């Protein structure tokens, strides 16, 4: 009896399709194959390297701030989206798979489904390449930052821009399948990011002043807020983030829909195009109308303070710089100790500049541990001697220069000329200040003009020798005598009324 080799059609089950679970399993298997074989893996590695390098190099020494960590997460936007665009163009319309040609030729999945999985695998790898290092740095920040939390806007805008890069590349690779399509896509991505800063000339207009002179003014381009890299800076503002992300995703869907229609003439592509038009249009209109520059106003935060020198001074930092407070006090305390308690000497030293009133408080700039000595010391000595009214003087006269040099010496900083130039200014500058005061110049603009006109004058060696001698003399005074002189003359010293001749 002959064996039946095939089952007659009438005896087969009614449905020829796979059960739902099996179909999902088949999709998943093909997706895993795509994930393992797609060249987007290389793109992911490079995107991860760029992101990690950008975030690492933006970390200040000795302090972790959420603002900087979050903002640096966006620093990879330009190269990451360009690489995403290139890999999108490379993968689009590419049926070749590593060691899988025969297997894929026999799959029951049609070309459209394979394209979809290829696109998804590219998206997943590129986004993973970006998000994994970001997650690592955010975890580090959550463990070490002392104030606030992550700003997701920077990450979100970069993520949707990478999606836009892949969509743009996919579009280029689909309609222009060529070995050079990757470069077209990369060039387009870079051009999109660079169009605003490089179009200054387009936005420059001639302006005739009332006196007849021709001036040039640069206007903000109406398209500025449509460019992802320009939106990045304002993506910590909720409205800008949502409209920006919606606009970028809308354009991405538009490009993918157009590419899908070009290759597959699919109804799904028409749906995508319709959604994109509905979403991106209003978002673009909203973005064009926004003026985000108005939103960037500093907010005063209750500082973290520490009393020193038996309560004679108080040193305050922003809570996010809590880890630097000990270093800051180690710089300020020895610098102020010799004059602490003298009437008129500032008692509060603060990192933030309050918006209402700065009188009585010395404001200093703080960035990180490495630049702390320079930033804090130069800020403090420049603002230490104020006029009794609270104003900061425009420059230190020779008497102030001598006292400041002595204070630096007392705190362990050498007061040689190089150091003084780094922390304060050259001796010749003090000589000009003396001359300005003697000439009765008090107006700030006139003072600045006077200082500029003498900036190229040859050095006066005898004056410099006098200043050096005065510093040595002042440092050699008995403590009691020097303290008494400072208490008696501090206000006059701050008002720049004293010269070398008035020093003890």
């Amino acid at each position, binding site marked *: 009896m002959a064996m039946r080799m095939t089952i007659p059609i009438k005896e087969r089950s009614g449905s020829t399709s796979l059960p739902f679970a099996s179909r999902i399993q088949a999709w998943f298997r093909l997706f895993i194959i795509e994930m393992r074989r797609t*060249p987007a893996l290389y793109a992911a590695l490079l995107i991860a390297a760029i992101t990690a390098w950008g975030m690492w*190099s933006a970390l200040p020494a000795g302090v972790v701030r959420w603002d900087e960590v979050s903002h640096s997460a966006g620093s990879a936007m330009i*190269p990451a989206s360009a690489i995403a665009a290139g890999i999108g163009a490379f993968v689009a319309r590419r049926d070749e798979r590593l060691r899988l040609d025969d297997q894929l030729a026999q799959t029951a999945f049609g070309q459209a489904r394979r394209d979809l999985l290829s696109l998804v695998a590219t998206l997943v790898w590129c986004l993973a390449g970006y998000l994994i290092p970001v997650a690592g740095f955010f975890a580090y920040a959550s463990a070490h930052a002392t104030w606030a939390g992550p700003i997701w806007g920077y990450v979100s805008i970069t993520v949707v821009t990478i999606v836009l890069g892949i969509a743009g590349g996919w579009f280029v690779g689909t309609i222009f399948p060529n*070995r050079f399509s*990757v470069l077209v896509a990369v060039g387009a991505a870079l051009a999109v990011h*660079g169009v605003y800063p490089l179009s200054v000339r387009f936005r420059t207009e001639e302006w005739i002043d009332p006196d007849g002179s021709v001036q*040039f003014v640069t206007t903000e381009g109406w398209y500025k807020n449509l460019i992802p890299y320009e939106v990045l800076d304002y993506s910590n503002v909720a409205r800008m983030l949502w409209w920006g992300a919606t606009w970028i995703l809308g354009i991405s869907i538009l490009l993918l829909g157009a590419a899908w229609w070009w290759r597959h003439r699919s109804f799904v592509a028409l749906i995508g195009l319709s959604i994109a038009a509905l979403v991106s249009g209003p978002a673009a209109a909203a973005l064009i109308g926004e003026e985000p520059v108005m939103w960037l106003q500093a907010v005063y935060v209750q500082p973290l303070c520490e009393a020193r020198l038996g309560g004679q001074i108080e040193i305050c930092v922003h809570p996010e710089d809590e880890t630097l407070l000990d270093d800051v006090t180690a710089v300020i305390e020895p610098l102020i100790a010799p004059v602490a308690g003298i009437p008129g000497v500032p008692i509060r030293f603060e990192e933030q500049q309050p918006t209402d009133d700065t009188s009585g408080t010395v404001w200093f700039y703080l960035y990180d541990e490495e630049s702390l000595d320079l930033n804090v010391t130069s800020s403090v000595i420049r603002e230490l001697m104020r006029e009794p009214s609270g104003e900061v003087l425009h420059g230190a006269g020779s008497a102030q220069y001598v006292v400041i040099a002595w204070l630096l010496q007392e705190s362990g900083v050498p007061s040689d000329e190089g150091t003084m130039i780094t922390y304060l200014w050259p001796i010749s500058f003090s000589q000009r200040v003396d001359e300005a005061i003697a000439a009765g110049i008090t107006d700030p603009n006139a003072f600045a003009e006077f200082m500029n006109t003498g900036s190229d004058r040859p050095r006066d060696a005898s004056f410099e020798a006098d200043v050096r001698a005065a510093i040595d003399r002042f440092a050699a005074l008995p403590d009691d005598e020097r303290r008494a002189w400072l208490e008696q003359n501090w206000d006059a010293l701050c008002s720049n009324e004293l010269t070398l001749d008035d020093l003890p």
Partner: protein
Amino acid sequence: MSGMNSRRGGLLCPPSWAQRADAGVRPYRNGGAIWRIAVLYLVSRRFIQTLAAIAALTALTWSVMRQTPTQPIPGMDLEMVTARNETLLLHLAAALLASVIGIAVFTPFGETERVSPVVLPVMRGLHLLLLFPIGCAALSLVISGWADVMPGVDLVPLFLRNALFLTGLVLLAGRVVDVRLVWMLPVMLGGVTTVSLLRKLDGMQVPEELWRDNGRNVLALDLSHGHATAICLGVGITAFALYIRDGVRDTEAEN
């Protein structure tokens, strides 16, 4: 054909090209055959399209730089803006030129070409040593027309150095992965350099600082940093020699 075989040193050797041509088996004599192979080689490398890509890159660089203002604008440091645009465009042009060359050296023939005899290294050498100078000459011509706003910084030699380094990296990476993918490397390095400079731009006092980046990025150092120039030349020349000898990987599956 078998009647044309000759015996040399006791071995039966196939006929030479000239013998074949004399016998009418091949329509070309040696010169014609070499010319034809050279032309076909260039066609297989999309030479015309590569030249078009270099022309497009040159035009892009030229036109973008033309958008830089030439008149003083209140609130704008004209020298700094000009220096910024020149520097960023130079990095962009070098990265994209290296990418173009990386894509141009891809061969579509795979194994057939890999087992081909000695003519290919010569072809590879001629192709690369034709393409690279053309690209460099075209872009150098554009760069030489830019305003000199950075004293002590010679942009044309810097461009040549960076282009040599990036092209060398592309060719070296092309030995490891499919050469069609290594455009990512110069794009990444160009992007990293650009982003790094943009981040530091606010703190720069003079335009020359654009070429005094930290010592780790050889692309962002001027010619006074001898180690950067030495690294670029070393990588470039080594990579060119290795490419001419061995070629690059033309598929992900090569073993």
